[in-house]
């Protein structure tokens, strides 16, 4: 029997029981849709994080609190950070001529300007922040290390913060308050975009010491160092580690490159995606059991037809392949529909929600391949049962 003929017969059988076939395929549709959607979101999230991290500038070295490889253990958390403003100054001196150093400290605060009050992200940092992170100052100036060292109350605004606080007015030289403390606006920085729906442009950058006073803490969250070239990165990492270790216990901080962070973030996201996809996979398994069940019903209903086909010359494998193709077609059609829905939902999610989503070919191939695999695995039992029917007995059925 030709494959095209088997496909035609299978299509006819499915069409003859549209509702039943549709309900059976629904499980496959949902399973495939979930797999595509979840992988797309996982992939999108990873791409977004990569982009954000790269937007910070290249050849960056981070010193963060805690043992990074083992995850944020007892050493983790900003309040327990071992870094101080002094440590940053020391590091800066140690690396003078080799690399630029800055540090950051952030907290959500209320800011007030002429146009109103808004929740912003108050970001304490040093004067070298702009050059370390490759941030362009669009108007005015960034505050200097001297401003930072003296704890002057000056501020640089992100574009969204400027708009919320000043509307159409010119913010330069104007006063704002952050957590009730007055700051003079000295500069504006370029757009940085959003990360997971958080508007990073809704940012007020102030000198590190001023921020420490404002928040009432002596710590710095993160130390950022920019190496002059990718080749210099490993050397800079070693230098940073050695310099910080002079005053801080080695177990209380970790020194990482962007690639290290990407790797760890990727691992975490990968595991998360895998778990979610495995759950979606279970729904495909359940769908497969449904397919098996309905195919067994179909074999039983068509026992006489099978007997007839055998009497007319169908071999065991003609019958087996006919039912296998029917199961494959059922799952394949369900898979196609699931793909369509999954892609549509992923695109819709990316367009209308903060969730990033990126539909990749391998996600499509995996999801569709799995649906066909389900068809084969769960079609085999009913198909073999059909093929093995004794023609004489099958013809007497009913």
């Amino acid at each position, binding site marked *: 029997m030709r494959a095209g003929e088997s496909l035609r017969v299978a299509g006819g059988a499915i069409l003859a029981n549209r509702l039943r076939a549709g309900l059976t395929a629904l499980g496959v549709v949902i399973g495939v849709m979930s797999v595509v959607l979840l992988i797309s979101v996982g992939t999108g999230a990873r791409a977004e994080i990569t982009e954000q991290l790269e937007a910070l500038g290249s050849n960056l070295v981070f010193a963060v609190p805690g043992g990074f490889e083992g995850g944020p253990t007892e050493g983790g958390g900003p309040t327990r950070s071992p870094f101080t403003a002094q440590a940053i100054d020391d590091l800066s001196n140690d690396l003078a001529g080799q690399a630029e150093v800055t540090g950051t400290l952030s907290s959500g605060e209320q800011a007030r300007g002429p146009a109103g009050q808004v929740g912003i992200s108050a970001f304490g940092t040093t004067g070298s922040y702009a050059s370390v992170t490759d941030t362009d100052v669009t108007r005015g100036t960034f505050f200097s290390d001297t401003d930072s060292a003296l704890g002057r109350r000056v501020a640089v605004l992100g574009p969204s913060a400027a708009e919320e606080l000043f509307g159409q007015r010119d913010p330069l030289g104007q006063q704002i308050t952050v957590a009730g403390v007055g700051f003079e606006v000295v500069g504006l920085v370029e757009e940085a975009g959003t990360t997971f729906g958080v508007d990073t442009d809704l940012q007020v950058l102030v000198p590190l010491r001023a921020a420490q006073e404002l928040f009432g803490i002596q710590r710095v969250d993160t130390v950022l160092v920019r190496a002059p070239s990718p080749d210099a990165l490993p050397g800079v990492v070693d230098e940073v580690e050695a310099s910080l270790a002079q005053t801080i216990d080695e177990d209380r901080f970790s020194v990482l490159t962007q690639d290290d962070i990407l790797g760890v973030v990727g691992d975490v996201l990968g595991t998360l995606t895998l778990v979610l996809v495995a759950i979606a996979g279970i729904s495909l398994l359940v769908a497969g059991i449904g397919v098996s069940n309905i195919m067994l019903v179909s074999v039983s209903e068509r026992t006489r037809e099978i007997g007839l086909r055998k*009497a*007319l010359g169908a*071999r*065991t494998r003609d019958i087996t392949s006919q039912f296998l193709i029917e199961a494959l077609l059922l799952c394949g059609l369900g898979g196609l529909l699931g793909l369509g829905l999954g892609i549509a939902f992923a695109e819709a999610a990316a367009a209308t929600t903060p969730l990033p989503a990126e539909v990749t070919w391998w996600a499509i191939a995996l999801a569709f391949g799995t649906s066909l695999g389900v068809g084969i695995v769960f079609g085999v039992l009913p198909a073999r049962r059909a093929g093995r029917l004794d023609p004489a007995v099958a013809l007497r059925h009913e």
Partner: protein
Amino acid sequence: MSHNGLPSPSAAASAAATADTTSAQAEPVVDAQDVTRHYVLGKDTIVEALRGVSLTVPPGAFVSIVGPSGSGKSTLLNLLGALDRPTSGALRFSGRDVADLSDAELASLRNTDIGFVFQQFHLLGRTPARDNVALPLVYRGESRRERRRRADEALDLVGLAHRRDHRPAELSGGEQQRVAIARALVSQPRLLLADEPTGNLDSQTGSDIMGLLQDLNAQAGVALVVITHDPEVAALAPVELPIRDGVLDQERATAGSLVPPPAVTAPPPPAEPDDSVASQRPPSQAEAAEEPPTR
């Protein structure tokens, strides 16, 4: 009595009677020697549906097997149609023993050499007549075009060319059985097996169908075995074999059993009228209209 190279005409005769006269030139279409078929239902329950049946069907023969319900007719037909294997005894198709054939080879044998006509027609409900007729050709990989051409020919042969696009539900019982007969013929088999072909039809339609089968037997030379519980239908065959409790009643086989079968080749040359056969046949309207040349 006949010296035209035909095998012994005795479809009913025992192996002993046929063995010496069987010519190598025309192998029997099917030859059963002392076959039994037992169904094992439980540990201690065995149904002996056939208990030692011998039957030789030469090419072009017409044999009827008549007996009450449960006498083993369908069981025998399943064996003659290569749908089933005997529990014991030898069963040969054109000289090939089923014991030596795989299931796939049996399927291929059914596909090329045997046509079935069933009491319940067994047509595919959603399928037009033409595709029903073409079904056997699907299993030998014929192209769609060739399948249609041959199905149309077969439908023409049973007088239903104008109904080829109709589904079974749109056809009368008699028409459905004609479609089934066309399907049995489409692969140009050597043997046509009909299990109660008139069982679901009124008597008039039934005799039309029997007339058609007889014509095909006579004109196309296909051997015909009809199974029935209806003595009138059974009497149409020159060889009439009663069956009871799984045993063929060789004693009560009709005298026609010793008469040569109708012509073997198609189109057949006009044969000498055989009074002993003709006298046993009740008149049939279909036959009267068609005037088969073998009488």
